[in-house]
C-alpha cells in the first residue's frame, strides 16, 4: 500500500513542476491534471476504507472520517483549480498580476493542499499539529496575494492570530501527552490517535480536560469559532476568490477535523465535558455571525460571517450528539463546503465584473450576468437552509437532535438565529441580484470555465437534498459510527 504516500506526493510533484514550467497554459494544465488525479486516487482510497475498514501503516491512518475529509478536500480543490483558470487567468489578462505571481499562485495552492491532506491522513496528533500550522504558513501568501496594503494587513493578522491559537493548541497536545504518560510511559506511540483511543478511559482526566479546552480554543481559532474568529472575515475578503473558497470550504473543516480527533478521545474519557464546550462555542459563533450578517456591507465578508455561522452549527451538532446530531453535523460539514464554494465563485465573478466588494454598489446582477445571478440566488437559498438543498437536511437533523435531547432552550435559540440569518442574508443577496443595474457595467456573463464548477456544485447539493442517495447516507452513517454515541 503506497496510496497514502501517492496522495501526498502528487501535490508536491505538481508544486515542483509549477516552479519550472514557463507558460500560463502549461501551469494550468499541470495543476488540473494533478488535482484531477488526486481526486480519483482519494476517491479510490475512500471507497476502499468504507468497504474494508481503516487503513493504518507507518505514520498514516485513514479511517472513515479521514476518507470523508479527503473527499471534501480533493473535490473542492479540483473545483477551485478549474475556477482558477478563469479567475486568475482574468487577473493575468488584465495585467493585475505578472507571470511570477501567476506561477507562485499555482505553486502555493498545491503546497496548501499538501498540508491539508497531511492533516487528515496522519495518525500522530503531534504531526497533525505540525501540518495544521503548515496550512497557516502555506496559505498566508495566498491571502496576501495581491500585495496591496489591505491584503498585507489581512495576511499579517491571519499569521499572527492563527499562530497564537496554534501555540495554545500545542500546549493542549503537551497536556494530552502528559495525560497518557502514566498508562503508556514516554513511548513514541503515545501521541498516536489509535493508541490514545484504545486507552482513552484510562487517561488522566485532569490533564485531558485542560488539554481539550486549549485544543478547542487553539484549533477553534483556525475554525473561526467566536470569539477567536477575528482573522477570518479579513482573510476571506482579501484573498483571491478561489482561495476564499478553499479557505472557507476546506481549511475550516480541516481545523475542525483536528478538534474532532481530540473530541472523540475526551468524550471517551470524560463524557459530557467536550460536548458542553462545543455547544457553548457553537451558539456563541452563530449569535455573533447573525449580528455581523445583519450589518454586513461587503459581500465577501458577508459570506465569511456565514462560514462562522456554519462552523457554529456544526459545533452545535456535535455538541448535541447522539446519532442524529452527529449525522446532521457531518451532512452540514459536507454541504457547507459545497455551497460556500459555489457562493465564493459567484462572488468572484461579480467582483471581476463590478470591481467592488461593497454591496451597495452592486445591483442587478441577474440582468448583467444571468447565469451567475441565478446561481448566486440559488446558492444563497441553499446556504440559509431552504429546502430542497442539502443544508436543510443537516439543519433539521440538528434541530431534531436538540429536541430529542430535551435541550429546548438551545433548540429555540438555534431556530431563532437561523431565521434571523435567513432573513438578513436573503435581504442582502436579493438586493444585489435584482434592482436597477449599476451604471457603467457592461452586460455579459463570466466564461463557461467559471460556470461549470458552479453548476456542478449546485447539482451535488440539489441531488443530495432531494434524493438523499443511499451511498451518501451510508458514508455519513459509517463516519458517525466512529463517534461515541454515534451508532444507530
Amino acid at each position, binding site marked *: 500500500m503506497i496510496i497514502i504516500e501517492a496522495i501526498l506526493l502528487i501535490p508536491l510533484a505538481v508544486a515542483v513542476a509549477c516552479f519550472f514550467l514557463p507558460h500560463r497554459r502549461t501551469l494550468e494544465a499541470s495543476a488540473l491534471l494533478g488535482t484531477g488525479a488526486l481526486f480519483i486516487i482519494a476517491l479510490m482510497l475512500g471507497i476502499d476504507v468504507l468497504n474494508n475498514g481503516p487503513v493504518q501503516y507507518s505514520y498514516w491512518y485513514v479511517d472513515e472520517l479521514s476518507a470523508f475529509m479527503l473527499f471534501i478536500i480533493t473535490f473542492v480543490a479540483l473545483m477551485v483549480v478549474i475556477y482558477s483558470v478563469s479567475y486568475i487567468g482574468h487577473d493575468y489578462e488584465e495585467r493585475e498580476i505578472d507571470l511570477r505571481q501567476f506561477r507562485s499562485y499555482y505553486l502555493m495552492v498545491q503546497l496548501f493542499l499538501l498540508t491539508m491532506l497531511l492533516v487528515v491522513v496522519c495518525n500522530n496528533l503531534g504531526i497533525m499539529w505540525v501540518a495544521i500550522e503548515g496550512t497557516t504558513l502555506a496559505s498566508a501568501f495566498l491571502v496576501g496575494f495581491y500585495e496591496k496594503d489591505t491584503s*498585507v*494587513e489581512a495576511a499579517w493578522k491571519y499569521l*499572527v492570530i492563527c499562530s497564537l491559537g496554534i*501555540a495554545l493548541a*500545542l500546549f493542549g497536545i503537551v497536556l494530552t501527552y502528559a495525560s497518557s504518560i502514566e498508562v503508556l510511559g514516554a513511548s513514541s506511540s503515545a501521541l498516536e490517535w489509535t493508541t490514545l483511543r484504545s486507552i482513552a478511559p484510562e487517561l488522566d482526566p485532569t490533564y485531558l480536560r485542560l488539554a481539550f479546552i486549549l485544543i478547542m480554543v487553539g484549533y477553534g481559532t483556525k475554525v473561526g469559532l467566536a470569539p477567536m474568529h477575528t482573522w477570518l472575515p479579513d482573510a476571506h475578503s482579501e484573498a483571491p476568490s478561489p482561495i476564499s473558497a478553499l479557505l472557507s470550504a476546506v481549511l475550516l473543516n480541516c481545523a475542525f477535523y483536528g478538534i474532532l480527533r481530540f473530541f472523540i478521545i475526551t468524550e471517551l474519557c470524560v463524557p459530557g465535558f467536550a460536548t458542553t464546550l462545543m455547544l457553548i462555542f457553537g451558539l456563541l459563533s452563530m449569535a455573533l455571525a447573525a449580528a455581523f450578517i445583519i450589518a454586513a456591507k461587503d459581500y465577501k465578508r458577508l459570506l465569511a460571517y456565514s462560514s462562522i455561522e456554519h462552523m457554529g452549527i456544526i459545533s452545535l451538532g456535535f455538541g448535541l450528539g447522539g446519532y442524529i446530531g452527529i449525522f446532521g453535523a457531518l451532512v452540514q460539514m459536507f454541504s457547507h463546503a459545497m455551497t460556500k464554494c459555489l457562493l465564493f465563485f459567484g462572488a468572484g465573478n461579480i467582483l471581476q465584473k463590478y470591481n467592488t466588494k461593497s454591496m451597495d454598489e452592486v445591483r442587478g446582477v441577474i440582468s448583467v450576468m444571468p447565469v451567475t445571478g441565478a446561481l448566486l440566488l440559488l446558492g444563497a437559498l441553499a446556504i440559509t437552509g431552504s429546502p430542497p438543498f442539502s443544508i436543510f437536511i443537516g439543519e433539521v437533523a440538528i434541530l431534531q437532535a436538540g429536541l430529542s435531547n430535551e435541550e429546548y432552550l438551545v433548540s429555540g435559540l438555534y431556530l431563532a438565529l437561523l431565521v434571523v440569518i435567513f432573513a438578513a442574508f436573503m435581504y442582502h443577496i436579493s438586493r444585489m441580484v435584482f434592482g436597477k443595474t449599476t451604471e457603467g457595467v457592461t452586460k455579459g456573463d463570466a466564461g463557461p470555465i467559471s460556470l461549470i464548477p458552479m453548476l456542478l456544485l449546485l447539482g451535488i447539493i440539489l441531488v443530495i437534498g432531494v434524493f438523499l442517495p443511499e451511498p451518501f447516507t451510508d458514508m455519513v452513517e459509517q463516519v458517525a459510527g466512529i463517534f461515541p454515541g454515534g451508532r444507530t
Partner: protein
Amino acid sequence: MNEQALTGVINGLAAFILLTAFVMVSHNRMNQLVRTFAIQSIALGAFAFAVAYYTGSDHIYVIAVLTIVLKGIVIPQFLKYTIDKIHVRKEVEPLVGIPLSLLLCAGLVMVAYYVAEPIIAGADAVTRNTLAISVAVVLIGFFLMITRRKAMSEIIALLVIENGIFLGAISITYGMPLIVEIGIFFDVLVAVLIMGLFAFRINQTFETLDTTFMRRLKD
C-alpha cells in the same frame, strides 16, 4: 553530580528563563529584545541538557542542541538581519509603560502559579516549579504580544510563547516524541522566515513596522 544539586540546577535555569522574560518586558530597543530572546533560548537549551542528564533519555539531548542552534543562534541572527535591513526606528514603543508592564507581569506570574497548582499537586520535585514557570512565560509572551505593536516584536512575542510551551513540554513529559519535536522546530523556523518576509512587505506598504497603522479592515 548528585540528584539534589541537579534539581537545583534545573530549577535555577527555569527561574533564569522567567527572569529573561521579565527583562524582555523592560526593554525599549528592538535589538536588546532579540539579544535577550537569544539568551533565553540558550538557557532553555541548557535546561533541556540538565533534564536529559537527569532522566538519561537521549532524545532530549537532540532537542537541547536544536534549541540552542535554531532558537539561540539562527533565528536571532535572522531577526537581527531583518531589523538592520529595514531602516526604521528601532524603539519598541510599548502601549503600556515599562514600570506598569513589569507590575502586571508579576501579577501574571501569580496567576500562573494559581493555575498550575491543581496539576502540580501530585507531580514530582523536578516539574513542580517548572510547570508554573512555563505557564508564566507563556502569559508574559501573550502580554508582550498585546502591548508591543510592532511586527518584529510580535514575532518575538510569539517565540517567547513557544519557548514557554517548550519549557512546559520538557518539564511535564520530559519532551515529546522526537519526530514531533523536529516537526515543531521546522514549523517555528518556517514561521519566523515567513513572518520576516511579511515584515519587509509591511514596511514597504506602510513605511513603518507599527502594526497599529493596520486598521483598514473592519466592519
